[in-house]
Every structure is written in structure tokens, then in C-alpha cells.
């Protein structure tokens, strides 16, 4: 890991980003302002270099969608073994997989000789494509939601596509014991926000334990700060547990108030319905199993605490996120039925993230935990296949087990495995073609399909770069001209 990367780690990792750095790792905490500004500029510079070909593909492909046959590929189905053969895509779905697949009339044929076809990568923890990540002002921010602020113009979407990712769980940050609502998206670059949402995926909510929720709003601990701003409760791990318990006590009372009202209404008694509370509604959904809990955590003790609290209130933790000490309590995690979404080998960016080992994913897998690897970073997101490969060295997972960590396992964690995560007939045609085996770190993404539509094509991207440069130069020159012509008259200047 490069030192610069490390410096970014805490901010990136925690999801505790300032307003200026809603994109991960791009306005790190300790970089001086000027340098930050430069980074920002460079970021936008890179943005112009990467394709800005808004919806060109989608526009042309949406007009008519003939079937597509991808031929002669090594197909890593993940759930049904590996074979050499073809995949037929029809109406956005995988229609046929086999060594020999007949080419229907009018089908577009893609020759993938020597290349590798795998299911689109799924990232169970991402903060791209949103205009804000943290509502850090309150300890329970469940009234806010990522869906309200999805930003389809975020270039990180395109770059993640270039890393073979097709689906991502966009999470609220970790500044709150109970954070905001989360949304699963498909990376349909060029589409509007609403069209990126993974329809049919259950909505989620972010919880967070440990240092982030107890430090957020407490720059000086629990003391009164310089501006006489009282520290935000909680300031300890005990407090985090208390905040979660109190919130669910409130949620149960709220749930009951609606039940009482419904009964009254059923009896025909006049009554005003309870006030709708946007903070408590998502928690009631959690209690009713209609919303998945994704909980940011590190230490074994806090993990056990959360599982106990969930058992007490009768809901499930769907995934433990980061969960770097998960290997210590894997049996308990498996018993609760929680999934674990962790890093391959990223840790030590703060005290609570020290007791970590690269064997975490493999050890939890062996104890029967459903494990995935996630990015939590727009950069890491572009090579999750590499991250998966590391588990073969550390813990001896098989090829298929390793690839499962970024495909079918996160799909199961997000309860969308009936749609994505493997190459099977009937599933969505979310596919990635690599030029080499995806578990090799020499592998590059050639093409990415979502719902059978081509959203990334390496060759086209390279071919279009010079055209974009020319276009950019033209706009810059024109602006210079206009500026000369349109200098504002302003105040106090003589008027012709």
C-alpha cells in the first residue's frame, strides 16, 4: 500500500467524509487546502480524460435490441462451473449458456476467443454516485436516504464499470449509530438517477458502531467545544448501544400507535392518524423484515453487542460491514445468520482497525458465514477482482470461492441472487469480459453489459479519447474569446 493511500485511509474507509469530499479519497483530511484544490482539479482533469460519452451506447442499443451471442469465451458461471462456450442474451436476460449455442437470425455476435466471461461484479459497500453521504448532525439519521441524492453524473460510476462492476450497494456514511437509508443500483451510466435503481432489491439502512458514531460531532470528546457546541451523544461504545436500543424502543411505540389507530378506525371511532415520522418508519420496516441492516463494525465485542441487541428486538442484521475482527466471532455471526462484507487486506487506519488479518474472509467462510469483499472506495472498486484473488493466497479459497466473494455472495447478501451474481439462464445479462483470467492482476476489462446492454467498451473508450480532447480544446478556446467580448460593465464604469 502506498503511503498516500494510507493517509486517505481513515476518511475513505469510515465513510465519514466532509462536504467537499463526497467522493471517496479525494479531499483527504490531512492534505493542506492548496493541495486539496490541486487534487480536485486533477480529479476533474481525469474526468475529462475518461469517457464522457453520455449514453452513446445506451442510446444506440436501446433503439433496437437484437439478441447478442458472446462466443468462444471461457465462461466462469460461478454457480455452475467453468466451461468454454457461448452465452446468448435476449431481452436483457441470459437466454442460453453452453458449449454450443445456435446463433439466432439477426443476432449480434461477439467473438471472445481467449477471453474470460464472468458475472458483473457486485460491490456490497460503496459511496459513489451520491451528492451527499453523511447526515452527521444527529445520532439517528434514518430520516435521510441515498435515493434522494443519487447522482448519475458521478464519473466514478463509469470508472467502476471499467473495473467490471455492474451493481453496487450505495450506503449512507458511518457517522451515526443508526444512519440513513441505502439503495442498490445498477451502474447504468448515462441513465437518469431513477433508472439506475435496482428495482426489486430490498432497501437497506446503515448502522455504525465504534469510533465513528462516537466521535462524530464530538471533536473534543464529550466536552463543550470552543464554540460552546455541546458534544453529540454518544461518546462511548456503551452510548452507541443505548442509542440503538432507544431508537428501537421508540420505533416499537410508533408501530403500536399505528396499530392502535388502525383498530380504532376499524371500530369506526373518530380519530386523527398518528403523525408520520420519517425517522421511525425505516426502523419499523427493519422490525418487520422489510429493510436490510448493513452495520459498520470492527471489533468482536461490538459485533456481539449488536447481534444481542438485534436478537432482543427481534430483527436480523443482514450484513456486518468491514467486520475486521469477524474471524474471532465467526461462529456467532453464522448463528445469527448475518453476512460479512469485509476487505481483503486493508486495516490499521485507526485504533479499532488494528487487530486484523488477511485470512479474515477465508476463516469466516470456513465457519459458514456468507462473506463478500467490498470496496468502500471509488478506487478499490475498480479492481475488486484483484481483491478476491488475494483470498486464494491468504486462506486458500478455491477460484470459485474467491470469485463468489465479489459476485454471488454479495448478491445473496443483498437478496438479489435470483437476478444477478452468476451466469445462469434466466438471470439478468450483467456480464463482464476480461482479457485474461479475472483472478490475475494483469487482467483488464474489455466489455461490460448490464441488462444485455453494452455500458463499457475498452476499445471505444480508447478510440474516442482524442475526439474528446479536441472538443474540450474547442470549448476552452471559445470561452476565452467570449470572455474578452463579454467583460462585464460592472459598477462605476462609464456606459457608452
Amino acid at each position, binding site marked *: 500500500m502506498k503511503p498516500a493511500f494510507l493517509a486517505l485511509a481513515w476518511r475513505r474507509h469510515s465513510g465519514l467524509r466532509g462536504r467537499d469530499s463526497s467522493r471517496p479519497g479525494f479531499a483527504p483530511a490531512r492534505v493542506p487546502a492548496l493541495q486539496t484544490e490541486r487534487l480536485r482539479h486533477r480529479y476533474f482533469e481525469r474526468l475529462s480524460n475518461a469517457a464522457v460519452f453520455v449514453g452513446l451506447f445506451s442510446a444506440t442499443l436501446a433503439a433496437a435490441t437484437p439478441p447478442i451471442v458472446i462466443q468462444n469465451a471461457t465462461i466462469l458461471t460461478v454457480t455452475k462451473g467453468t466451461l468454454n462456450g457461448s452465452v446468448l442474451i435476449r431481452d436483457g436476460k441470459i437466454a442460453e449458456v453452453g458449449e454450443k449455442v445456435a446463433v439466432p437470425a439477426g443476432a449480434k455476435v461477439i467473438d471472445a476467443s481467449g477471453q474470460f466471461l464472468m458475472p458483473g461484479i457486485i460491490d456490497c459497500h460503496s459511496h459513489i454516485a451520491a451528492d451527499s453521504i453523511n*447526515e452527521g448532525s444527529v445520532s439517528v439519521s434514518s430520516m435521510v436516504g441515498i435515493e434522494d441524492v443519487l447522482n448519475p453524473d458521478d464519473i466514478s460510476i463509469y470508472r467502476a464499470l471499467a473495473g467490471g462492476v455492474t451493481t453496487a450497494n450505495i450506503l449512507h456514511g458511518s457517522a451515526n449509530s443508526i444512519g440513513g437509508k441505502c439503495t442498490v443500483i445498477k451502474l447504468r451510466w448515462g441513465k437518469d438517477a431513477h433508472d439506475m435503481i435496482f428495482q426489486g432489491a430490498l432497501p437497506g439502512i446503515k448502522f455504525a458502531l465504534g469510533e465513528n458514531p462516537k466521535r462524530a460531532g464530538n471533536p473534543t470528546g464529550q466536552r463543550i467545544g470552543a464554540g460552546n457546541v455541546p458534544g453529540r451523544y454518544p461518546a462511548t461504545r456503551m452510548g452507541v448501544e443505548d442509542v440503538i436500543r432507544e431508537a428501537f424502543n421508540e420505533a416499537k411505540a410508533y408501530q403500536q400507535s399505528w396499530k392502535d389507530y388502525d383498530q380504532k378506525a376499524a371500530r369506526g371511532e373518530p380519530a386523527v392518524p398518528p403523525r408520520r415520522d420519517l425517522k421511525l418508519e425505516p426502523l419499523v420496516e427493519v422490525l418487520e423484515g422489510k429493510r436490510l441492516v448493513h452495520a459498520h463494525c470492527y471489533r468482536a465485542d461490538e459485533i456481539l453487542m449488536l447481534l444481542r441487541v438485534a436478537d432482543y428486538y427481534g430483527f436480523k442484521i443482514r450484513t456486518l460491514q468491514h467486520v475486521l475482527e469477524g474471524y474471532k466471532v465467526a461462529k456467532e455471526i453464522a448463528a445469527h445468520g448475518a453476512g460479512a462484507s469485509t476487505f481483503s487486506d486493508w486495516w490499521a487506519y485507526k485504533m479499532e482497525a488494528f487487530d486484523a488479518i488477511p485470512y479474515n474472509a477465508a476463516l469466516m467462510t470456513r465457519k459458514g458465514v456468507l462473506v463478500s469483499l467490498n470496496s468502500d472506495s471509488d478506487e478499490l472498486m475498480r479492481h475488486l477482482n484483484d481483491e478476491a484473488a488475494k483470498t486464494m493466497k491468504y486462506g486458500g479459497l478455491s477460484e470459485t470461492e474467491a470469485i463468489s466473494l465479489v459476485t454471488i455472495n454479495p448478491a445473496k447478501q443483498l437478496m438479489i441472487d435470483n437476478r444477478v451474481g452468476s451466469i445462469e439462464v434466466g438471470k439478468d445479462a450483467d456480464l463482464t469480459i476480461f482479457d485474461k483470467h479475472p483472478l490475475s492482476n494483469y487482467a483488464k476489462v474489455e466489455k461490460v453489459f448490464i441488462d444485455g446492454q453494452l455500458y463499457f467498451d475498452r476499445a471505444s473508450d480508447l478510440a474516442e479519447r482524442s475526439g474528446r480532447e479536441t472538443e474540450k480544446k474547442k470549448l476552452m478556446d471559445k470561452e476565452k474569446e467570449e470572455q474578452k467580448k463579454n467583460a462585464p460593465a460592472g459598477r*462605476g464604469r462609464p*456606459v457608452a
Partner: protein
Amino acid sequence: MKRLPILLSLMAGAIFAAPPGAVAIRNARVIPVSGPAIQKGTVVLRNGLIEAVGADVTVPADAWVIEGDGLTVYPGLIDALSTFGIPEAAPPASGGGARGATPQPAATPAQPANQSANPPARGPEDRPFTTSWLKAADLVKPSDRRLESVRAEGYTTAVTFPNRGIFAGQGAIVDLAGETTGEMVVAEGAGQYVTFTTTPGFGGGFPNSLMGVLAYVRQVYLDADHYKQAKQFYAGHSRGTPRPEFDRALEGVLESSRVLLPATRRIDVDRLLRFTNELHIEALLYGVPEGYRSADLLKNAAATALVSLKWPEKAKDSDPDEPDNIRVLEVRDHAASTPAVLARSGVRFALYSGGIDHRADLFKAVKRAIDAGLAPEDALRAMTLTPAEIYGVADRLGTIEKGKIANLVVTKGDLFMDKTEVKYVFVDGVKFEPVEEPPPARPGAPEASNPGENR
């Protein structure tokens, strides 16, 4: 002593304003907007209203006559979104600002007055950044120093709003001259002005993110709905029912028939149209520099846009060695084509000054839109009749027609041309001869030239 300058200027105004009788502008080219141009026509004003307009109008015997040869008469311009008339108010957000399309969802405003003394808000229930009960109709003052320079731009009317906070307050349609607050107000109830104000950092209270603001606005509308129900129920079951607590924040929201929301990018347009559709509220989107690439969304939603004439510009202090990305460049290049694209797409829109308070700058900004394909008559319409229609005052403002309020701009040359001179402005029939040079900024006055400040 402090009052002396005001008194003097009132007296100076009175010299022009003198005749209680009638004014006739004769033999001028008249652009009524409601119909075809009259090449040689006469407009008669009396008692603050338009008494007659046409080619064959007889000049009344008691009228003060203005020879209109070489002059053109237009309806007074209406600034569709402003703070004019409210002293000390910063200009409204232009939506674009100097940073072009750079996403600035959580731009931090100056701390609104109502927040500074209070402890940080702990959630929507504390009603952060909310003064929804404030009314521009109560706040406008003829003494606002900006009125003179604004009239010099050809504006006779402004739809003006308190503009600090998330629910900033209720707008009014005001004429930009008068002796008293009451005289200025044409109509109140122009709508509720909303900005996406956030607190800085995590310690400053709720909300500190764009999604927090949106959640807050949503909760307030749900609360308003519930409040209404509770009050209705109480009216029918007063005995035996605890009374609902009076909530002036919700009263202010319920009083507002429409809401004005800031929409900078296409995603903002998309997001806010869905949002207002979900909440069943009538909205006007303001700013809209990316309207040129959002026309389909606006059209499908039958939405109305208020387009800021303050086109996004390259930041003055930007590093020449670090050019902006292609999207930002594109927005700056294309923004001025927004009115033309909206007109072609059949989207209703009005233009607003975005705080531009100098005639030459305003005309240049309109000219850019015209150069980008907007028909000059559409530009004029978007600054006269359309805003009057949007705010429901087209029966009295926006065109030169008999019986309407006598608000006119008289120019030498076509409006919005570089060299065109604004000769006279009539507000409620009172004549003003604009002075191009605006009064010098008051020392110590807040620098109110930062559009987007209150986003």
C-alpha cells in the same frame, strides 16, 4: 439628519411624479406583448392605470404629452425571482454561480439570523432554518437602495422573497416604487422560497447534508398535512380533544400555494420533479442553468422553470494551468441556450435577473440567450407576460392593455441591444428617468454579489 437624503430623493421623485392627471406617450412604437407591434401608437396613462393604447387614440386634453418619435414602449419588465425591495437581502441564488456545473450540493451559506442564537437543531422537529411565516409583503420598503438601479434596467415589478433559510418565507409581487410598503404590493402569496441550506460540519445541528435538507422538507410537508387534519378534527370535536399545538412554521407552509426550489443540474431537475410529485406540491424550479439538457424532464412534468440570467462563469481566480473538465466547460458554454431550448420544447419559463443590477450587464445576459437562439419576442415575454401568468397576475400586469397597471419601459432602440438607452420607466403611472450610474455601495454594507450563496 439620516433621513435627509431620502427626503431629498422623494422630492426629486415628486418632480417627475407630479401629475395626478394623465400622461400620453404619442407617436411611439408600442410593443404590447399581448398583440402585434403598433408602429405609430399612443399610450395614455391615468390614475396609475393604462387608460388607452392604440394607433388611433386621441390624446386627452389634460394629458401631459411625451413625444414618442424614435422611442419604443414596452410593458415594464418583471423580475420573476428577486429580493428587490427587501433591504439587506442578498440576491437570490442564480443556481449556476461562478462554479458552473461543479456539484455544490452542500454549499454552506452564511448562518441565517434565526440559527445563530439557538442551540443546534436535533432533527426536523426543531424546524431548523425555517421562517416560513415571513412575508415579503410586510418586508418590502420603498427605501431599498437597489430600487433605483433596478428601475434603470427596465424593471418595474419584481416577485420578491425573503431568501434566508430552508423555508425562507413567502413572496409578493411588488411594484418597484411607491411611498409606502402598502403601495408597492401588487399581490402577496407568490409562494414559499426554499433554499438547500445546511450547517457546516457535524457539530452544527440538523441538517448538514443535502439528503438531510430533502428529508426535512419532506417531513415538514407530512407534518403540515397532519397538522391540517388535526385542526380539522379539533374543529369538529373540540370538547374532549386536546387542542393541537399552534405551529407557525406549518402555518406558513400551508399558506403557500407553491414552492420555489433550486435546481442547478439536470439531476436536480429530475430529483425535484419527482420529489414535488411525491408530495403533491406545485413547484417552480429556479436557477436551471442546465435547462438546455433538462427540457425533456420539464416538458414531461409540465413544469415551470425560472431561469437565472446570471449565466455560470469561470471562476475569476481559477488556475489557468488546471482547466475545468469537459462537462463544466459544456455547461458554461451551453447554459445561455437554455431559454431557447425551453421555448422550442414548449416548456413554460420566465427569466430573472439573479441579482444583476446593472443595465448593461442585464441586457448583455439577455442578448446571450438571444444569440443562442431565443427569439427576441420570447425573451420579452419571459420577462413580462409569462412571469405575470406564472404568479397569477396577468389580469393586471405583463402587457400594455387597457385597464392594466401603468408599468412601462420606454427605450431609445430595441430592448436588450447593447447601445439601447432606457429613457423612461413608469411605475404605477409615475415616471422615472433612470440614472445609469447606481449609487455607490454603502460602506460596511454586506457584499451581496455572491449568487448561489444561499443554496
